[in-house]
């Protein structure tokens, strides 16, 4: 088929690609940025990063504490990180207290749980009517002999811990958010999208080797 598009061979293309200079530091930052915002715990990759690692490790420590059921510890860590977060997020604070109660029930510490519900959770319901429904659900756990088989047993599920952990993580991220400062927005996915877009644009003008599989990054000849 006759085409007005320019044809670029595999060799030419690879030559062009090799001519592009990338800094290793940029690549490191990109990868680290991705891993960190996605929540993988990691050791710092030298002094190349612009990211404030202290805050990231703190945030990860909070998330981990909740995931392990150490809610009180998590609360203390959040308050060390930024005392405003829980003071200005009544819903989050309620969910953390709720999780504490769930953990006490899970550990079979029924008396302590009752006292905690009275002293710590009930006032939340008084302060804010919106929480009453969830409060009642949680307290219902105390009523049943076998909490793991009652209608509200979902609360005891590990997934509930993860939900709370994720909520607290989001709140910390928000408080630290720097829109223009790119360190906390994952750039890797956007770059890959841009690659695909650029290929689509170039397709209208040229025939050249594509990257069709993003996970391997292999170049495929135009005819293949």
């Amino acid at each position, binding site marked *: 088929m006759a085409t007005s598009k320019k044809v670029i061979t595999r060799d030419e293309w690879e030559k062009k690609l090799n001519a592009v200079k990338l800094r290793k530091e940029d690549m490191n930052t990109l990868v680290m940025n991705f891993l960190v915002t996605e929540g993988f715990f990691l050791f710092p990759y030298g002094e190349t990063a612009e990211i404030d690692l202290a805050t990231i490790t703190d945030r990860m420590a909070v998330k981990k504490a909740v995931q392990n059921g150490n809610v009180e510890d998590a609360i203390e860590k959040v308050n060390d990180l*930024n005392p405003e977060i829980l*003071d*200005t997020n009544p819903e989050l604070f309620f969910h953390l207290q709720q999780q504490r109660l769930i953990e006490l029930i899970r550990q079979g510490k029924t008396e302590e749980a009752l006292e905690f519900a009275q002293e710590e959770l009930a006032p939340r319901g008084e*302060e804010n009517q919106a929480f009453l429904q969830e409060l009642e659900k949680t307290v219902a756990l105390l009523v049943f002999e076998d909490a793991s088989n009652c209608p509200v047993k979902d609360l005891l599920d590990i997934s509930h811990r993860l939900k709370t952990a994720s909520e607290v993580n989001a709140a910390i991220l928000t408080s630290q958010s720097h829109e*223009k400062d790119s360190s906390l927005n994952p750039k890797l996915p956007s770059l890959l999208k841009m690659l695909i877009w650029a290929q689509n644009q170039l397709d209208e003008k040229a025939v050249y080797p594509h990257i069709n599989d993003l996970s391997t990054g292999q170049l495929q000849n135009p005819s293949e």
Partner: protein
Amino acid sequence: MPTSSSSSSSFSSAASSSGNRQADVFSRLASSDPEVKLKALREVKNQIIGNRTKKLSFLKLGAVPAIASALSDSECNSILVQSAAALGSFACGFEAGVQAVLDAGVFPLLLRLLTSSDEKVVDAGARSLRMIFQSNQAPKYDFLQEKNMKFLFSLLNSENENVSGLGASIIAHACGTTVQQQVLCDAGVLEKLVILLDGSLSQREACLESLATVLKNNPEAVSRFVGLEAGRYLSSVTELTKDRYPRTRLLSCLCLVVIYNTSPSYFLNMGTKSSLVTTLLELLNDHGQSGDDAALGLSSLIAEKEDLQKLAYEANAIKNIVDILKTGSELHPKRLQGLFLSLAELCSKLEDCRCSFLSLEMLDLLVNALRHKNADVRTAACICFRNAARSVKNLSAGRFTNDHVMLPLVQLLHDPSSSVEVAVLGALSNIVLDFSSPKSTFIEYGGIKQLIELSKSMDPNARCSALRALRNLMFLADNKRKELFYSEVKAQGFVSLISDPEPTVQEQALALLRNLVDGCINSIEFVFDEDGLILDTVGKQLRKSPQAHMAIQGMYVLTNVASGTELHKEAVMQQLFPQPQAESNNFMLKFLQSHESQLRSATVWTIINLISPSSPGAHDRHVKLRDEGIIPQLKNMVNDACLDVKIRIRTVLSQSMSFGDN
């Protein structure tokens, strides 16, 4: 780094109550051992953050002064951080806490922390100061003093986001007057603030809040802001109305509302206006403070602006707001006030809105709001009633004149709050105009007596509004109603009303009198009661060079009286040309030369009635008017700019001709 908290160990001692635990922590605060003290401070901090109930109980124990001592006495950075954080938490959204913190002399202690070499200490100090400045109780910041301005700018220039945010917060909460706005702008505050727009979330939000305060009602400041980098920052703020964080969207909307209300010319684009309205409507659904603020913001935006009210109506505002009000959950008074005011604005000019609103079974909700414990909510509900009652269709359908609505409204005439009084008078003024109902529930509830009471209020607004309601009540009223009213006021009462020190009150009193004497000829007799006391007073007031609005009503009173019998007409002549006249005090001539066409018109009407040919003394009165220069003056006015005046003058002149005048 201590990780476990002592509260879990105290749980195990089943006998100890929470009160004991708190007392225990409290006593450890005073310990001389810094380790113990630090631990206690952390404990208190962790217990009170997010927990209003605990804040209150620790407050009662006297924790704040104890922590303040720790703050002032210690050099150890950790203790400084923990005590500052605890104090900041006491002040966070908790007015009693703010007061306690300020009373304990914490403010200067926190200021000192800002110069620490330890970043964490600076952060803690800045955060806590910001909490204090969110409250109305924060110390007044005197921008006019140079050292204060310098300090403020040092905050704004800081690299530390908490510190620059503090600078913006101080401006947001302390800048109130035009002078302050001017001084800040001249010192270059706008240029500093806009930098924060590109910063972190908290910096952006602090910036938006402070911009709104500096720009409010200040066209010069607005033009300066818009001029920065050729409108770049106005665009930035507009962009932020689409931000993913609701609070940012809200604050940027509120900023734009301020700019729009101050200098609407920057918003010629319908698209921006429309998106501002819809964004605020969306934000109404936010459960937190943003939703509360959005409601008030919306009412401020659409106030007096018919085009925006239409936009909002088309965006389904009424249904959305009514749905929120009907959810049944306890809404914050600020939100209720904002929602009712928004509804009121929507109903202010557009009949479609009123019908739509009234068709949604809202009256019960509105009536309940009349009984709300918060005065602002009651006021807003009354204003809503007032505007909805402008719908003649619904008014004559008796929607507002049944007991269910009337009784609570009338009860509010006794409300302790003056703003509620004025607002309910406004509502009643409109409601009593319902001509379709022959008997009036309002009068049955003793409404007239109450209005007369209020016409003697200390508050001139209340007097004015009460008289306006009475004026409407007397409009086209039957004799029975007029007699009932007059029997409560009597001549002397009227004299006081007409002689009120406030011109606006005088005007309403005269308008009321005008309606009273209008209609059947017997009504005119009221002004002759007690030897013509009322008529004399009217004449006296007219001779005193009154303001145009007052004079108009006064002349209409004379017009109505002059429409009666021969005796009545002569009495009017007496008032116009009293004998003996000390000086050439011909107020009629003055009125005929007034810029106010209505005044000219009313005066001409009086003349028409005085010389109407059917009455015997018309000829003599005509001579008198001619001799006093009135008729010649009218001849000069044959081409009066106002059509109505022109036509009346023609009538007079043709009457004049019939007397064989040359």
